[in-house]
């Protein structure tokens, strides 16, 4: 399979991979390794602001690359439980094939779960 340059860049660097710890860290996960795609986000939130984000991802290069991009662009107000960019826009940004776009919904679910955990603190 061919990947876009952006996909390869984020897949190969995967900056932001890991976990956060501490009282102001909120976690959300979605998917299943047994099903082939699993994503987890940790958000460090205080004063309604996301200060840091980390991710773990078991999945294809697109899954890892998009998760890394989302974690990188996560900083800012914790206003709503939405991704920094819509799934449709992310799929175009990373040239995700149509048949793999369901995996972006797993990323969105993990993100929403993490944000909701922070909003419900």
């Amino acid at each position, binding site marked *: *399979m061919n*990947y876009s340059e952006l996909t*390869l860049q984020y*897949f190969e660097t*995967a900056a932001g*991979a*890991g*976990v956060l710890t501490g009282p102001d860290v909120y976690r959300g996960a979605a998917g299943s*390794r*047994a099903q*082939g*795609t*699993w994503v*987890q986000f940790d958000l460090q939130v205080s004063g309604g602001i996301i200060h840091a984000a980390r991710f*773990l*991802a*078991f*999945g*294809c*290069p697109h899954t*890892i690359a998009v998760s890394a991009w989302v974690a990188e662009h996560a900083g800012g107000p914790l206003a709503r439980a939405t991704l920094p960019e819509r799934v449709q826009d992310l799929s175009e940004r990373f040239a995700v*094939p149509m*048949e*793999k776009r369901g995996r972006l919904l797993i990323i969105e679910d993990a993100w929403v779960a993490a944000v909701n955990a922070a909003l419900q603190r």
Partner: protein
Amino acid sequence: MLRPVYLDHAATTPVDSRVAAAMAQCLTVEGEFGNPASASHPFGDAAGALVETARAQVAAAVGAVPSEVIWTSGATEADNLAIFGVAQYYREHGRHIITVRTEHKAVLDPCRELERRGWRVTYLAPDSGGVIHPDQVAAALRADTVLVSIMQVNNEIGVIQDVSAMGAVCAKHGGARLHVDAAQSVGKIAVDFAELGVDLMSLSAHKVYGPKGVGALLVSRRGGRGGDRGRVQLTALQFGGGQERGFRAGTVATHQVVGMGLAFELARTAPPSEVERISVLRERLWQGLASLGGIFRNGDAKRSVPHVLNVSFEGVEGESLLAAVRGRLAVSTGSACTSALQEPSYVLRALGRDDILSESSLRFGLGRGTSESDIDTAVAVVTRAVSRLRKIGGT
């Protein structure tokens, strides 16, 4: 840019330079470009002589006689000719075929097509090492069985089947003919068509440093093991000139068969030390990867050809694993990638691997050009990729 280390010799091999040179001699006006079927002038005679020399070379490499060699475009066509040819010829005797779940698609797809046309097919399940036992074949034989098709060396896991024992089972049955796909065998293990007692054998040139686009089907003229049940018969699948004794019409591609003949000759005369060298390199690769932990060797190592190592890596996703190594390493996944989405390898699933481990496998195919340095590079690249992906995946 550095070319990746090539460890995909089970998929194809580079054409030996001596083979390429011999092929080139059959193409241009300075060489033997004639139609080998043209008996009316020296151009045809010369090309025809080269074709027959090649036929003898192929036969000698696999313990056959030249008249048993039918040229084809490759092992896939040979498999199709064997399966459809036998099924069609013996259709009044029976419409049952036995094969194995881990066969190449070139066998499985014709069998499925025959099922659509009304034949019955039994798909034998291998044990966890990929081995089919002769008593499984014996138990599956029916009065209406006309063909058993079993590959000698599996293309994904390298496991060698005891086709000689299966030949004996078929001979005892009497009506069932044995077809063996030996595309992965030549040059790796000794192949003796007569000794094995099989009726039909498919061969390929490009797995043995010969060209793509040429292969052969061996059709026994001895009546199989014991020679007491009559020669196997086939119905031809294509018509239009009567070449290859009517089994495969069409002008024989002189340069292709000359290439295959020389490639098989070189394989036959290669020093046995080369097989030992490859075997040592494969164990170096396995031992190097073993330090990762969470890896599984697919296929019974004691019954495997030396040039194939198939490994599943726990805690990584298959597509990402391949993407992580592809810049430095040319290998295959264990998967049959027939679509944009990877499908788990049906071969590994048949061995009992779950979908995730079936997807997260790599097949390393070693060959003549593989060096210790290549193996050490492969170990380093795969170790880094797996470790990194496990960290990203939190496993």
